[in-house]
Each structure stands twice: as structure tokens, then as C-alpha cells.
């Protein structure tokens, strides 16, 4: 292989690693994406020009046309689509990558028929490429709203048997009939169908997890094709995406308090079911960490803190003042929402916060702060429970029905700091904690806030 080409591939691989690393931090993410992009561009240009084969001019013309067409279309789609449609777009592009891998496998089938290892890689590329292709397209269509969840009876059993069948079929081709075009088309068709069956029963709320999984698979398909050509950048790049994507899939599951098998074999995948689960008996809550909350606060422009009895118990009034000052210094508009009965006595919060020198004009009374919640980015609820319980508005059977509350559920995001999931003073469940917009930051108010402050200082 051309030595310059090898060196460029090495640079690209390094760019991928550094780029991925930088994508993991808010400050460097944009640059990281750019670095991997430049690496990718280099690899593409180098592949076209630095090689040792005789290439007819017509091939160059076709390559140039294909690149131009794909670049223009890809760029236009990526630029035009609304930000809210991003996840499905990622899925669409991912499907294209899978499609590319399956076509490569298809073209190369038969070219290496005497070597079982090569044939296996080709078969694997076809199977994985096909299922990510159709799977991603289905995920795209479902997020688009143009397709609903469909659950065939016994779909788990069918899918599991299907995947075993695919592997057996692939193995059969490798071992007994590695030149039959008819069999390979059958395998192709079956893999395409499997992609559809795999994604179609999965609930809308779980789609991001599935997309991440499919993304990981596309990486593996790319790596497999790389093995076929002995191409380092494809191998390492593909495996990086494969393992990073898989870990990301697990992290995403964890953030939703679900297991991967729970998502795929769907105990309760669909959005409607999830909503139905919220109620007296609870539902899913979303746990968060100090670092996640710190980032959320750091990039907000308006933050409202809702203090409650928990703040007083933990004696966290000084820390919360420190947090407020820190955010203000970073240009965030921070105020406190004071519910008249927050704490155990009227004015409890005012006294407490005045003790730690919180400036008085930052304490906003309930009636004045409620209209402001819709344009608040993040509400930080510290040790308050009943005063933010929406049951007061919408559950006539609730003991606190009719109590005026702070309408924090109107804000864009809600972070709730509590020691545990125990009910509040009134002893009732709070559906706010199961709200989609709510993240729970468990822990003693003082230590949780101290962690938050430390995270913010490091940003």
C-alpha cells in the first residue's frame, strides 16, 4: 500500500479519536466534530488519489459525480431540517451508511469465494448493513410520525428465531455455496426484513436508544468491510463507532432508568403507556447527576430556585447562595420562588435565605413568579415537594387539591433535589417527579448543592 496513504489514514484515525474525545465536553464539542470531519475529508481525498491501481477515467468521473450529488443533497437536508427533527435525521443518515456497507458486500460477493474468512466478512457486512439500513429508515419514519408501533403477536420470539436463522443461513453460504447469487439475494432480502421487524415494535420514546444501537451496528459494518480490504482507517474508525455507540446506548438506557433488553423487548415502550403508568403508583423517574445539572444550569439564561423544607433541614442556605452568585457571575438570571407555605412556617424561606445574605429583590412571591415559569429554562427545586405538586390543580381526590402552588411544570426543565422518593409532608405522591421534563438529583441538599457548585466552578 502507498506509504503516504497509510500515513494519512493514521492521521485520520487520530483525528477520529481526538474528535470523539472532544465531543464529550460541551466546550470542545464543536471543535471535536470539526476535527473528525477534517480527518474524514482527508481520508476520502487520499483514497481517491493515492492508490496503486490503474483507474479508467470514466470511473473517476462517476466517483466525482457521486460525491458531488451526495454532498449537495446531504448538506441541504442537514441544513434545512428543523432542530426538533434532529434525532430522526441522524437515523436517516445512519441508514444511508448501512446501505453503503450492504452494497459493498453485495458487489464483492463472489470475488473472494475461495477464502472462507473473506466470504464471512462479506456475508456479515451484508447482514448488518441491510438490517441497519431498513431499521434506521423505519426508526426515521416512526420519529417522523408517519409510522406507528406495530407489535405482531409473539414478536420477541419471532425476532430472536429470525436472527438465529440469519446467522445459520450466512454460515451455510460460507461453508457450502459461496458463489450462489440466488442465495445471497435471499439473505439480503431476509436481512432487510429483519431490520424492519427489529425496529417496528419499539416504542417512540425509546427510539433514541435504538438509533444509537443501529449507529453502533453501522460502525461494526464499516469495520467488517475494513477487514475485507485490510483498510486500517475503516477498521479502527468502525470499531470506535461500534464500541462508543454501544456504550452510549447503555448510558442512554441508564439515564432513562431502563435496561437495554427492556427497551428492545419492550415491557412498556410506547409513549401512551408511559403516561398511563404515571399516577398514584408512580412511573418512571429520570435520575440526573451533579455534572449534568451543572451543565444544564450553566447554559440556561433564566433559572428559578424553589427552596423548601429540605433546604432548611440540610442547612444548605449558604451553599445555595454561593450557587446563585456563581450563576449570576456567568450571566444567568437567577431568582428564588418563594411559596407562602414552603418550609414549616410562613416566611421560613425568606428568613433562611436572608441569613445567608441573599439579596431581597431576588426573592419573588408566588403570584409574581408563576407567570414567569413558561420562559424559565431551568427550575431547581431544593427540598420542596407539596408546594410544587400539580395534583393541587388536577386531582380532586388529592388532599392538597385547590392549594395554590408554584407552577414549575410550565418551565422548560425541572431539576428536583430530594433525599429520596419519600412523599412530602402531606404524604402524597408528586407526579411532577415523573414529568418528562423533570430530572431527579438525589441526595442531601447541602452535599448535592456543594457538588453542583464545584462542577460549575470547573466549567
Amino acid at each position, binding site marked *: 500500500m502507498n506509504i503516504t496513504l497509510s500515513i494519512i489514514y493514521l492521521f485520520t484515525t487520530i483525528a477520529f479519536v481526538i474528535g470523539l474525545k472532544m465531543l464529550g465536553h460541551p466546550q470542545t464539542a464543536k471543535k471535536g466534530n*470539526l476535527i473528525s470531519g477534517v480527518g474524514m475529508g482527508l481520508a476520502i481525498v487520499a483514497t481517491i488519489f493515492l492508490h496503486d491501481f490503474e483507474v479508467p477515467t470514466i470511473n473517476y468521473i462517476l466517483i466525482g459525480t457521486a460525491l458531488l450529488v451526495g454532498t449537495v443533497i446531504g448538506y441541504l437536508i442537514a441544513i434545512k431540517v428543523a432542530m426538533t427533527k434532529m434525532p430522526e435525521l*441522524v437515523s436517516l443518515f445512519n441508514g444511508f451508511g448501512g446501505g453503503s456497507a450492504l452494497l459493498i458486500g453485495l458487489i464483492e460477493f463472489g470475488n473472494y469465494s475461495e477464502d472462507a474468512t473473506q466470504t464471512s466478512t462479506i456475508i456479515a457486512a451484508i447482514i448488518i448493513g441491510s438490517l441497519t439500513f431498513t431499521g434506521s429508515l423505519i426508526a426515521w419514519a416512526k420519529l417522523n410520525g408517519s409510522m406507528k408501533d406495530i407489535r405482531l403477536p409473539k414478536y420477541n420470539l419471532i425476532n430472536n428465531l429470525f436472527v438465529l436463522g440469519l446467522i445459520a443461513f450466512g454460515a451455510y453460504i460460507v461453508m457450502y455455496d459461496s458463489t450462489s447469487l440466488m442465495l445471497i439475494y435471499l439473505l439480503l432480502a431476509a436481512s432487510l426484513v429483519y431490520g424492519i421487524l427489529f425496529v417496528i415494535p419499539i416504542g417512540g420514546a425509546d427510539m433514541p436508544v435504538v438509533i444509537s444501537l443501529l449507529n453502533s451496528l453501522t460502525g461494526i459494518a464499516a469495520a467488517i468491510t475494513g477487514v475485507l480490504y485490510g483498510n486500517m482507517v475503516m477498521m479502527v474508525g468502525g470499531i470506535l463507532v461500534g464500541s462508543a455507540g454501544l456504550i452510549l446506548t447503555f448510558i442512554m438506557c441508564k439515564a432513562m432508568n431502563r435496561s437495554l433488553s427492556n427497551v428492545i423487548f419492550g415491557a412498556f415502550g410506547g409513549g401512551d403507556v408511559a403516561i398511563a403508568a404515571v399516577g398514584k403508583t408512580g412511573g418512571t423517574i429520570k435520575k440526573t447527576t451533579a455534572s449534568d445539572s451543572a451543565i444544564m444550569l450553566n447554559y440556561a439564561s433564566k433559572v428559578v430556585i424553589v427552596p423548601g423544607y429540605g433546604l432548611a433541614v440540610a442547612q444548605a442556605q449558604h451553599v445555595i447562595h454561593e450557587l446563585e452568585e456563581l450563576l449570576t457571575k456567568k450571566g444567568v438570571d437567577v431568582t428564588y420562588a418563594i411559596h407562602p407555605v414552603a418550609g414549616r412556617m410562613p416566611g421560613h424561606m425568606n428568613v433562611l435565605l436572608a441569613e445567608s445574605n441573599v439579596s431581597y429583590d431576588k426573592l419573588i412571591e408566588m403570584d409574581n413568579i408563576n407567570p414567569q415559569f413558561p420562559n424559565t429554562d431551568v427550575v431547581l427545586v431544593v427540598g420542596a415537594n407539596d408546594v410544587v405538586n400539580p395534583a393541587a390543580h388536577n386531582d380532586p381526590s388529592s388532599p392538597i387539591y385547590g392549594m395554590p402552588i408554584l407552577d414549575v411544570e410550565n418551565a422548560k426543565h425541572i431539576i428536583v433535589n430530594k433525599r429520596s422518593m419519600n412523599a412530602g409532608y402531606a404524604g402524597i405522591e408528586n407526579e411532577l417527579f415523573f414529568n418528562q421534563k423533570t430530572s431527579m438529583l438525589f441526595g442531601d441538599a447541602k452535599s448535592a448543592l456543594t457538588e453542583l457548585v464545584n462542577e460549575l466552578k470547573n466549567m
Partner: protein
Amino acid sequence: MNELVEFVSNNLQLLYILILAIFIGVELIKNVPSVLHTPLMSGANALSGVVIVGALLVMLQAKPDDYLSLGLGFVAVVLGILNVVGGFVVTDRMLQMFKKKK
């Protein structure tokens, strides 16, 4: 069994690379804050477009009269570059939101 041993000894270097790459991927992604999950997924998706290198190799080596390979290869290149360009541009757009507004 013999075949497996043979395969391993022939591809030892490859196996080293694969295993180390898996570890790097895992280490890079651990402890990423959840606000970055979607952009990260999108960025990784753009990287999986590296499969385009394979599509290019197919096109470069195809005989000018092998219309099937040329045709399928053409589509493979288009799909691959769509994945690359679209992936990077979308990620970039998502990351706009992390610009500190003053």
C-alpha cells in the same frame, strides 16, 4: 478448532487493534453528560460514514464494462457521502446550542 487457531495466529495484529480500539471507544464515551448524548450519537454516526472509503475502493477497482459493480458502487458512494456530510453538518448544527449566549 485448528482453523480457529490458524485464524488467530494469522490475524494476531488485527485482533490486537480491534480489542484496543474497543477499549478506546468505551473510555472516550464514559462519563459524558446527558445533554451531549444526542450530539455525540450524531457525531459517531458521521464517523460510521467511513464506510465510504470501501465504496470508493470498489469504484476505483471496478472494470469500466462491469456495469453492475459501477452502478451499485455509484449508489454506495452517494449513500456513504450522504452519511458523512449529513452527519457532520447535523452535529455541527446541534452543537450551536452550546455557544454561550451573552
